[in-house]
């Protein structure tokens, strides 16, 4: 579930980035890199888990699924926090600069 949620987040971010490319004033590319990087790493992790547990990998218990879903959503939220922090620090639209000048 974590892998699935992160991949969905990565795809959505890539679509949004492509819509605004090549400007990228909102730094959506940062989100794309974070989510695609995590997706690739979790994908490799899933392959190794599948090699170890075989069919059990596709039949997780309800507890595991809920836990993984919470983890996936939390990971996406954490990625958004990193992006917001980067956006506010770099201030690509110079919003803070203009505010402080006034």
């Amino acid at each position: 579930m974590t892998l699935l949620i992160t991949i969905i987040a990565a795809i959505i971010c890539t679509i949004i980035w492509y819509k605004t490319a090549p400007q990228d004033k909102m730094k959506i590319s940062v989100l794309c890199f974070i989510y695609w990087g995590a997706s690739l790493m979790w994908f490799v992790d899933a392959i190794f888990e599948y090699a170890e547990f075989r069919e059990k990998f596709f039949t997780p218990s309800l507890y595991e699924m809920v836990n993984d879903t919470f983890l996936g959503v939390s990971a996406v939220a954490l990625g958004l926090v990193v992006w917001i922090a980067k956006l506010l620090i770099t201030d690509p639209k110079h919003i803070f600069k203009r505010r402080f000048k006034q």
Partner: protein
Amino acid sequence: MACFIVPVAEAVISTVTAHILEKKEKKSDRVQKVSGIDSSFKICFSKKIKWLSKLLWGGSFLLAFEHLWHGEIKPFFPFLTAAKNSESFSDMLYEMSTVGIGMAFTVTVAWIGMLIVSGIFEKHQKVQEMREMI
């Protein structure tokens, strides 16, 4: 356990390399940078290495969060629960050498794919520019 350490190590190397390359590129003025793209739409190599470091840092950060979620990372020394005894430590090293290297390798392969695609676009752009000049 600690598989994210391998991509973190690669991320550190790629970040340092990108900074060194960026300085060299700025010094020699080989590439006129306008938000990472020069007049012939050629993306400088330091920017391309930054793609790799962003992929690695982003991925490892979320992976570290997952490890924290599962209680594999602690906020106090030795930080990794697997580093408590020698048996779990050897398991951790085994995981790093299999899953960790697999992760770093996959991200690097994806990045090489990005390089190939961007290289094709750059070539296409160059040909188009030359045609326009003729």
